[in-house]
């Protein structure tokens, strides 16, 4: 058999190798381009996730953030916004009114972050201008009867001495715009009304005083409420959760802890909103209570802070229900006059007002230069 020589085989092999190299190069370039495109998409998604973290924190601003100590940091934990896209936001209190909300957005593939972007926003606390001029402010008529007491002296609540300044000057027991204040025989001569003066009639108690609090209005405050309640309410008391224990702000019956300074809920001042009538029967809490309808305090309920009622207020019963702070009742025209009766005590407290209003502050982005990109 003769040996046949030729170039066909080497030529074919050479051609195949060369073609393979070319095709590989084309695939490589294509893959490179695809990856660059994917990276752009991933970066955009991470950035948008970070932005959504800021927005989410601002939209669901918790009064627990308002109660944070200066320098403290809280986190939302990792929040998933879409498949493979999530953010973690951190809320750091800078000073008494400023917070830095920092959000890291991530785009993940197979659970591993491939892109991270960080943005931040400076947030300012806007405290409602709730500084009532008296222990009880009313717009229309009111009856004070039984063993009720309204005191305009600056009362420092029990156990609050360490955190309150020296008592401020007394204010009137009742600030009234027009309606007659009727006191029953037990309160003859206004003996149940103490303070700088029993009753101060002023036009300051007009309707807007109950709906507009400086830069914040009633609906805005109500919209920030952490508790929405109505009807009869009892058993309000602080609760804790977890280990180490922390204030259980998820408990609807937890309205903070005004009695125990070492308690986890001592600095928790929720905004509580009642869209209709509300009857407080037992328990205790603190914060800012907004009532769209009428308020009744029928038992030994104790509240520390500010109560704003669009309707009328009625207190009844022999148990001593107490309000430390101030109570404002707009007594909308057409409703029967309110009455402070039973053994209720409305005790003006500058400190309770101050702490609850600070805790109930509304957060808003800094008006200018509040947004920043972090590296």
């Amino acid at each position, binding site marked *: 058999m003769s040996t046949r020589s030729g170039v066909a085989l080497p030529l074919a092999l050479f051609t195949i190798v060369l073609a393979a190299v070319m095709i590989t190069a084309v695939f490589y370039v294509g893959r490179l381009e695809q990856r660059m495109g994917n990276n752009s998409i991933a970066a955009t998604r991470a950035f948008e996730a970070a932005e959504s973290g800021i927005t989410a924190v601002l939209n669901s601003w918790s009064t627990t953030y308002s109660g944070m100590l200066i320098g403290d940091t809280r986190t939302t934990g990792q929040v998933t916004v879409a498949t493979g896209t999530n953010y973690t936001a951190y809320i750091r209190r800078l000073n*008494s009114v400023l917070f830095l909300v920092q959000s890291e957005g991530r785009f993940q593939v197979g659970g591993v972050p491939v892109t991270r972007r960080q943005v931040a926003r400076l947030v300012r606390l806007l405290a409602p201008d709730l500084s009532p001029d008296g222990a009880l402010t009313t717009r229309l008529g009111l009856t004070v009867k039984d063993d009720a007491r309204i005191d305009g002296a600056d009362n420092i609540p029990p156990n609050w001495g360490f955190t309150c300044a020296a008592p401020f000057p007394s204010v009137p027991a009742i600030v009234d715009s027009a309606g007659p204040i009727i006191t029953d025989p037990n309160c003859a001569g206004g003996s149940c009304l103490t303070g700088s003066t029993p009753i101060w009639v002023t036009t300051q108690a007009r309707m807007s005083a109950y709906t507009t609090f400086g830069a914040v209005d009633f609906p805005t405050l109500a919209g920030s409420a952490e508790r929405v309640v109505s009807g009869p309410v009892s058993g309000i008391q602080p609760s804790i959760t977890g280990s180490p224990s922390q204030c259980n702000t998820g408990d609807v019956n937890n309205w903070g802890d005004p009695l125990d300074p070492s308690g986890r809920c001592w600095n928790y001042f929720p905004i509580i909103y009642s869209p209709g009538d509300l009857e407080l029967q037992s328990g205790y809490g603190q914060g800012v209570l907004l009532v769209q309808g009428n308020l009744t305090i029928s038992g030994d309920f104790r509240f520390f802070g500010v109560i704003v009622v669009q309707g009328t207020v009625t207190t009844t019963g022999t148990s001593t229900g107490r309000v430390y702070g101030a109570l404002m009742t707009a007594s909308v025209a057409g409703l029967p006059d309110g009455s402070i009766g039973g053994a209720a005590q409305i005790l003006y407290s500058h400190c309770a007002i101050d702490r609850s209003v600070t805790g109930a502050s509304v957060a808003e982005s800094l008006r200018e*230069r509040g*947004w920043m990109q972090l590296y």
Partner: protein
Amino acid sequence: MRRRAGFTLVELLMGLIIMGIVAAALTKVFLSQQRLTVTQVEQASMQANVRTGTLILANELREIGNNVTGGNDIKTFTSTSLTYRAMRSVALACGITSGGVRIRQNPIYGARPITAGRDSMLLFVEHGLGTTGDDEWVRLPITGITVSTCLTPDSAPAYRLATSGLPAASEVRLDAPVRTYEIMQVAPVVQGGHNWLGARSVSGGEALTPVAGPITVAGLSFSYLDENGNSTGTRSNIRSIRIVLRGQTDWNVRPGNGLVGPSQPLLDSLVTTVTLRNMRLP
């Protein structure tokens, strides 16, 4: 007569012709593939450059605040050039003394250390606590930086930023934010026979340096839009900036499959609109 094996002249010629045709076809395929590869590599590179340039510009311009306290961040603006304040870091003030602002060493959020002379600062002044209407950012030069301590009980490590024209210490709250910035300019620049997207630190006294490209001769253009998305030439009305970046390949390449058409640079463009995030909120 003995028979001798071999090819006839005709067979040999036929073989050579066939081999020539095959070789020519292969060469054409190889050249086509090579040019296609070169074209694609160039195109990918060009697109990456345009993306990078757009990303740089968007990141720089997004933090601009205009018509706000502390002065406008947009200094000069044309259709091909923009001079602006570029935010560089955020820190927290922990003490005001005569001629100096102390900032905490930790945290400082920034891409690079603060540089005296090159950087200036904006200090947040609260004034009244009950209103946001009087809040303002006060612009201050940074004339020097020294290591110091905070005027706080813990005397935390700080930097003292020497400055002048400080507001009263009583008006600056502890841990008030401080933003540092430098004046930057972005504009086209020619280098090595190509046009590039260039950038320079005006406050740092730098010359324009290419940062992305190459781009076409008119490869960078800015449009300034008001709150309704209409073009505006009034600085105080600018709410967003539309950036058009037109890139081109480094080398001339044949378009399409690499075989037809004249050899020329490939062109591509990217348009993005950046909303200024630090405008005054209503």
